[in-house]
Every structure is written in structure tokens, then in C-alpha cells.
């Protein structure tokens, strides 16, 4: 399997790996190790701004790279109901083969699960994913 430059860089550095704790921290996870992909995000809020985000991931290099990128991009951003980019855009950014795009949905599910608690805390709700449907191969 060959990976593009973005995937290799985020897989190899994975700077946002880890967990957060303390007040204003919300956690969400999706997937299962037994099925090969599991992702967890922690987000830490300061009013409605994501102060920090961390991830843990059991999965392929694409899963780890995308999770790392999402955690990196989210920091400093205003809380909103979705990934920084659509799954389609992420799959292009990281050159994710069509057969593996279902794994990005697990990343998205984990991210939304973490946000759900945060948004509820802020009095908002997530009604649906803003992501356009994609083929899962």
C-alpha cells in the first residue's frame, strides 16, 4: 500500500495523540478494535471554542492520519457540528482508497460523539452530519 505525503506525515507524527481531562472536556468514541478500526476524541472547551483536541486510534495509517489531522485542525476553532472538512474532502486530502472510506465515517462518528456532549453542554444539538453521503465500496 502506498500513502500520499499527508498521510505519511500525520501517521508518522501523530502529534495530537493522547487524552485530555479536567473541566470542559468531552469524550466520544466509535468503531471496535475487534473489527479493525476504533477512534476516540477528547475535546476541551473554553466557552464555545475548542481549546484542545486529542485522539486515540486503533486502525490503518489513513485512520490515524485523518484522526490526527482532525484533532490538529479543531484546536482554536469555534464549536460546530461536524468535521473541519467533509468525509469526501478528507478522502481526497489523504488519498483514501474508495474501499477504505467507511473508516473515515468511524472517525466522523467518534468526532461527533465527542461534540455531542460539548454541544449539549453549550445548549445546542447535533441534528445530522453535514457530510454528503459517499460510497463505502
Amino acid at each position, binding site marked *: *500500500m502506498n*500513502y500520499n505525503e499527508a498521510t505519511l506525515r500525520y*501517521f508518522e507524527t501523530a502529534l495530537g495523540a493522547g487524552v485530555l481531562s479536567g473541566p470542559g472536556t468531552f469524550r466520544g468514541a466509535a468503531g471496535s478494535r*475487534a473489527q*479493525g478500526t476504533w477512534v476516540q476524541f477528547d475535546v476541551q472547551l473554553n466557552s464555545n471554542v475548542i481549546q484542545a483536541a486529542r485522539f*486515540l*486510534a*486503533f486502525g*490503518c495509517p489513513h485512520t490515524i492520519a485523518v484522526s490526527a489531522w482532525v484533532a490538529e485542525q479543531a484546536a482554536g476553532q469555534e464549536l460546530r457540528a461536524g468535521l473541519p472538512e467533509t468525509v469526501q474532502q478528507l478522502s481526497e486530502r489523504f488519498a483514501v482508497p474508495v474501499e477504505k472510506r467507511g473508516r473515515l465515517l468511524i472517525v466522523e462518528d467518534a468526532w461527533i460523539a465527542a461534540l455531542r456532549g460539548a454541544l449539549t453542554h453549550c445548549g445546542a444539538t447535533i441534528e445530522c452530519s453535514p457530510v454528503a453521503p459517499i460510497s463505502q*465500496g
Partner: protein
Amino acid sequence: MTATAPINRPAPINRPVYLDYAATTPVDPRVAAAMAQCLTAEGEFGNPASASHDYGDAARVLVETARSQVAASVGALAQEVVWTSGATEANNLAIFGVAEYYRESGRHIVTARTEHKAVLDPCRELERRGWRVTYLAPDGGGLIHPDRVAAALQADTVLVSIMHVNNETGIIQDIRRIAAVCAEHGGAWLHVDAAQSAGKRDVDFAHLGADLMSLSAHKAYGPKGVGALLVSRRARGRDAAVQLRALQFGGGQERGLRAGTVATHQVVGMGLAFELAQAALESESERLAALRERLWRGLAPLGGVMRNGDAEHSVPQLLNVSFEGVEGESLLAAVRGRLAVSAGSACTSALQEPSYVLRALGRDDVLSESSLRFGLGRFTREPDIDAAIAVVTQAVSRLRRLSGE
């Protein structure tokens, strides 16, 4: 100079440590030199089938010398060696050749779930053509018990195909006892894929009692693109020795079993490679066993590390390990660039599939995927093993941290 002399060690500059000798081996420089002498106008470039001039005669002498070298290194008669393009063709010739020749005697074949695809795929094709195939399951250590073979034999079984050494786990099957089971049955010929054993451990075709045996040159420091099928001339208590129907026609070479001009340089390379390997066999086995145990002892402290296959029945040059808490594709990606090994998964598409061999041994999908096969060889030294331990330890530890393990 022995086959293990350091002078043959390839320059390691900026290249990953190579521990994938079960996939292929570099051609021994002495073998490459002998092959080169069969290619150009100054050398023996003649067609070995040309009987009307000295060029052909000289090439034919080289081909027959190589045939004798291969035969001598595996306990066979020179007349029993049929050149092929490799073990895959040899497996196909054995399986289809027997099935077609004995189609009126029976249409049942016995093989194992842990065989190489070069055996399983021909068997699947025969199923499509109307044959019945029994795929035996190994025990948890990877062994196919002879009594399971005996139980699987039917009145119309014409062929049993069991590999000598498994390419993923290194497990050695008890071919002699399986051969005895086939002989007692009386109608089942025994084919053995010996691609991973010939040139790497003692193989004695006559003593093992197989009727057909597939060999590969490139697993034993010979060139790719050449192999052989050993076809026994011994009847073993039956009316006649095993017979095959040819799969290709056009010249009648190799006693009509494999038409086509014999590639002199290729078979010369295989002959010398097998001779050199045989000479170094004993010392290499001891050396590689020590290196393999060094590798295992170095990896074990990681914890959550499982050795795949029965260690007591495996070849010294191969170690297959599953790592708990890491995903297989990421593990391979994490070591790539510093270490050349094979994963326990088949990358048949963008999605990796768990190793069917490890699954047959009872490993679940995740552990079957998160395995690495370390294949040691002639140029492997202690620093390579130590480097491999460091690379894998770092990769596994990092991936476990990333997943919160």
C-alpha cells in the same frame, strides 16, 4: 570460500534490513557469474536441443550437469528432474497433470487449508471442472496429522498435495508418514510443494516417499523464473510410477512433459545454487536457528507477542509473530523503510485481508493481520537482528500508545 562468507554480503547503505528471505533471496554472485557465461557469444549460448553442432552439445552438457546438481542435492535421480519456470508451474503441472491423467480412476483430491495459493488455486480450478477437493485443517500448531490425511482418503482419491514447509509459519510437515498413508491407500499419489525447504534443509526425495515434488530456485539464492518438478521413477509397490498429462505442447522437451526451449542460463543458475546451498546446509541451519532465537528473545519483552506455529516443528530461518494491540497495516507501514518483512495479511486490494494460514491455525482476524513474518537468510547477521528488534519494538510501542493500550 563458503556460502556464508561475508564477502557476499550486499552493501547495506541506506537500505532497509532485509528479513524477507522466505519471499525471495538475492542471487549468489557465483551463481550470477555462472549464468552470465551462458548468455553471450563467448559463452555457451546454444540451444540445448540442437543436436547438430557443438554449440548445442555444450549447452546440453551444462543443462544435464545442472540437472544432476539439483537431483543430487535433493536425493533424486537426474531423470526425475523436469525443468519448469518455477514452483508455481511445477505445482500446476503436478496437480493438473495427475488429475487429467487419472481422470478415469478418480476425481478426488486431498490438500490442506494452509497450502500456498499455487496449490489452492489449481485445486479450486479443478473443483470448477468437476473434481472434489478435501481441504484439511491443521492443528493449532500448523501440523497436518497423517491420520487426518488417512481419514480424508476416499476410494477415488488420485492425489494428495501437502507442502513440506509452510511459507508463512515455517512449519515442517511429516511427509514421510503422509507418504506411507498414501502408499497404503494404493491409489493416491503424493505431491509435495518443497519451495520453502529445498536448499534450506535436508530434502531427500527418495527417502521421503513423495511421488512428485516442486522446487524453486529463487528461494535458495538462484534466479527467479526457474524451478523443477521431480517426477518419481519408483513404482513404490504399484504397477507403475506416477504418470502425468502434459499441460503445454510444442517441441517435446523434458520427456514431453514441458515443451519449450530449456533456458540454459536459468537451469545452470539453479543447479549451482542448489549445490552451494547443500554444501552450507548444516552450518547455516545452526547459525540461523541461533539468530531466530535471538530475534524471538528480543521481541518477547514487548508482551502481547505470540509465536505462530509450533516452534518444535519449524525451520530455523523463519519466525512468524502476532502482536496484540496493533493493527496490521499500520504495523507494516511503521516498520517500512527500515525493515523489509512480510505481513500476515494479503494485500489483494486496498483492504488488507487476514492471513488465511494464520486463521487456519485458530488466530482471530485482528491477530492474523497484526503479524509479521521474519525470513532470515544467508546474509543475515546479528546486527540485522538487533536492528529489527529495535525497529519493531519502537513501532509496536508507538502504535499501542496511539491506541491507548
